[in-house]
């Protein structure tokens, strides 16, 4: 195994492009190292991107949006004084992952690139409209997060490409987000169903919404029917029912050790309702 610690994303990209065999980028390592130790994947090349300048920075942009370095950890997001005020759903989603120790390492970019449909931060990123900068041999391009995962464990990133920054949009006025997951326990578990909701109000009426579902399909889903079910409403009972139905209808889950098709389909609707209520309350400026 060859270990590399490039000083720039261009160098990291070149290393990956030239590499033969299995290549893995090492940010937090909470997936890569686990797979390595469990003898699931033994990479030929391990490219550590934590030593690239700025990868631990959380920066407020001029437009009010945020840029997060790819090695920013869940703990650093949770402890940031302002990020969570803008995007409580996104920060809480990241904070749900793993233990205190894992929080000290795990990253948004890693969670996205691991491409698990059950990844907790990914539905929250989908809902928030997060974009990422992808660096490749041909330079940088900005990609919406929903265009990154393509199947369990697979991404749209080509050989020599890696994520070099995470961009969270400006929060703006009268808006709120929320993420809920279902697990049989209270922590240290993996989502059986996850749901992210991000919405904006004018008065009491929802004018913009993005709703995402996790662990109910081969990839995290951005569900337009769910958004349409609540846009133009005040999130009354009828809207909540329509949202739940749309969420359940969007599910294409599997029966496995973590849950059944029937359970996931049902609970997707339940979580959509509950998450939407929290996001709505936050948009109204209420504590939730």
């Amino acid at each position: 195994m060859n270990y590399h610690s490039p000083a720039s994303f261009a160098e990291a990209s070149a290393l990956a492009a030239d590499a033969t065999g299995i290549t893995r980028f090492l940010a937090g390592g909470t997936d890569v190292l686990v797979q390595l130790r469990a003898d699931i994947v033994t990479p030929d090349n391990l490219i550590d991107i934590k030593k690239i300048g700025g990868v631990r920075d959380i920066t407020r942009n001029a437009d009010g949006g945020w840029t997060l370095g790819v090695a920013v950890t869940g703990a650093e997001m949770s402890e940031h004084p302002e990020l969570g005020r803008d995007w409580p759903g996104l920060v809480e989603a990241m904070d749900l992952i793993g233990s205190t120790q894992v929080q000290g390492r795990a990253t948004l970019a890693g969670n996205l690139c691991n491409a698990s449909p059950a990844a907790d931060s990914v539905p929250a990123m989908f809902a928030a409209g997060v974009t990422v900068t992808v660096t490749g041999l041909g330079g940088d391009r900005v990609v919406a997060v929903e265009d990154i995962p393509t199947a369990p464990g697979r991404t749209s990133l080509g050989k020599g490409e890696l994520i070099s920054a995470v961009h969270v949009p400006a929060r703006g006025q009268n808006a709120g987000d929320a993420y809920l997951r279902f697990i049989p326990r209270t922590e240290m578990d993996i989502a059986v169903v996850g749901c992210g909701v991000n919405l904006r109000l004018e008065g009491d009426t929802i004018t913009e919404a993005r709703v995402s579902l996790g662990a109910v399909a081969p990839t995290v889903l951005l569900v337009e029917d769910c958004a349409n079910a609540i846009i133009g409403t005040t999130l009354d009972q009828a809207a909540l029912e329509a949202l739940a139905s749309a969420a359940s209808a969007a599910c294409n889950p599997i029966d496995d050790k973590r849950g059944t098709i029937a359970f996931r389909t049902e609970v997707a609707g339940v979580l959509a309702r509950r998450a939407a209520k929290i996001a709505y309350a936050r948009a109204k400026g209420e504590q939730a």
Partner: protein
Amino acid sequence: MALDDRKSDFKFVGTRPDRPDGLDKVTGRAKFGADAHAPGMLHGAILRSPHAHARIVKIDTSKAEALKDVKAVITRADFSDKVPFKPGLEGEFWNVLENVMAGEKALYDGHAVAAVAATSALAARDALKQIEVEYEVLPHVTDVDKAMAPDAPVIREGAADYSVPEGMHPNVVRYHESGHGDVEAGFAEADLVIEDSFVTEATHQGYIEPHACLASLGNDGKGELWCCTQGHWIVQKTCAALLGMETSNLRVTASEIGGGFGGKTTVFIEPVALALSRKANRPVKVVMNRSEVFRATGPTSSASMDVKIGMKKDGTITAAEGIFRLQGGAFPGAPGDMTAMCGFAPYNLTNVRQVGYDVMANRPKQAAYRAPGAPMGAFAVESVIDELCNKLGLDPIDVRLKNAAYEGTKASYGPRYGRIGLVETLEAAKAHPHYAAPLKPGQGRGIACGFWFNHGGETSVSLALSEDGSAQLMVGTPDIGGSRASMALMAAEVLGIPYENIRVTVADTATLGYNDVSHGSRVTYASGLATIKAARNAVEKLCERAAAKWGIPVDAVKWEDGCAVPSGPNAGDFDPMPLADITTNMGSTGGPISGHFEATPEGAGVSFGTHIVDAEVDPETGKTAVTRYTVIQDAGKAIHPAYVEGQYQGGAVQGIGWALNEEYIYGEDGRLQNSIFLDYRIPVASDLPMIDTVIVEVPNPGHPFGVRGVGETGIVPPLAAIANAVSNAAGVRMRQLPMSPPRILAALKDNG
């Protein structure tokens, strides 16, 4: 036993001092299984079958052996061929051998088929990939009911013992039937009869420390083994048999132990490490990973049960009948007999009949797990009693009190009970504020009782006094629940010297007589009894020295508060002689003073408990929260109450896991789907309420201080108590464990 053997007023017993091994454990100084190292040590790794059932056609180890880092490769051929196959549990050494290294067939996913010793753990792991095994995959079965069906694949012909009735499938290997009275006549007398079927899944003991050992077996035939175990003499005896050595040529030392719960009462990797060491002529360390622990060490049995109980309108049980089918993996040993005997044991029944089956399937060999077999039976029996109470509008504690066994009751499994404390636990439950506390909407309350036999077992203890008057106590039962503290308290009570002046050591197999495993809730009872007797043996010698010094007969000297004193005014007028004054010159007054005791104590004294549980079910997701939990159990006499409470709480916690989320999940291919803690869901701390405890003390006449074992009874009622609480909260009877959210949500939907 004579009454003057009894003691009821205590100075040390019943106090809560810090445990002697506490500092070592919180600072990391304690040495566990994987903490041992030896010069020239190799690392072992084990190749495991990916198939649930397969004939091993050929194993080619030549490529692995050719690797420069590899120093030994072994298969079944490297073990003794003199361990005979016998039916049932008679051939337990053969069963263990077959389990630690497969013979003609791989019998479950994870079954060991070969092993490697190499210069590093990584080299050993990679070398396994170079071993070529040709399998002929066979049909498999993992479900207990399917394993008994006529068309089930046969796991091994000839494994059934004499007890199995003719015409049963060869996978049924032991049969138990017991009871008394006439159950049909009893059911005819009942106002209401309920008959239901129940299912529980296999669960793992879930100890935090994976199995680990360091073995050294040289050309001189002398072996050393360091391992994490609940009983090193059984390890010594078993490994010696499997390796074909003299027992005394193998010295086994028990490491500190990070949990066992019954799962470390046998061997898995130890004989493999010894065989590798013998072949490589180097010490070999083997450490399991968590996936190996799940796939290849003992979970408990899965069960399928039918229970029928008849009750009169006033709550009197007129008859009870149970059929308990337990699946214990690809070997005999599933405790269907225990399940059958324990199920109805809390009750005074005129008509009772119980049947237990021991059934083999393509799963890992079951191992003991706290009160093996009892929790499942209690789940079925106590659920039916709860249904009867609900339908007849009766209070669940009153009904249990009405039918409770007491001193003199003929137990469902045969003998008459001596002094027991079930009624006292029920009365304490009824009086507890928990039972009167109002429930919130969506919450339900469950009550259940539980029984366990408790055990004595072979025991040796040695106590040596030092010149300064301190004492060293050598016991042979690994400390799995704070037993060093309990032993020191009991020795302090007899000797009359401070707790802190007694050092308790878990001695190795070469330095103490035989000791049975730390199981059967026997340690505080049996090692405790032996400690008291060994200390009394030393006290007799101390009194002899005092008598000689004073020039009076030894029967004119008694022991009081750590001093020899004249037994009465007629014995003479001497100042009390403290222990240290006797030991200070013991070398010149007759030699070193020690006390010993060896026996197989028979008076363990059965134990009962009653649990009260409140649960809340989310009707939209089926998720359960246990909101309040109270354990009430008879300890006979709590030597160290904090550790008794710990046992109660631990039993409840493991029961919560078993009831709600823990289960072995097998795929269609017979492979275990959830062999890591992410998907094998034991409760985390935040899942649990504070577990309240009440220690009831009804002294056991079979122990000098009245001790009853407390390690196991605490896991018997929880499955039932939680199921009753959940069923009452959800308004639908849950008859299958675990009561996972998908299962509860489906039941709610079916219920409309």
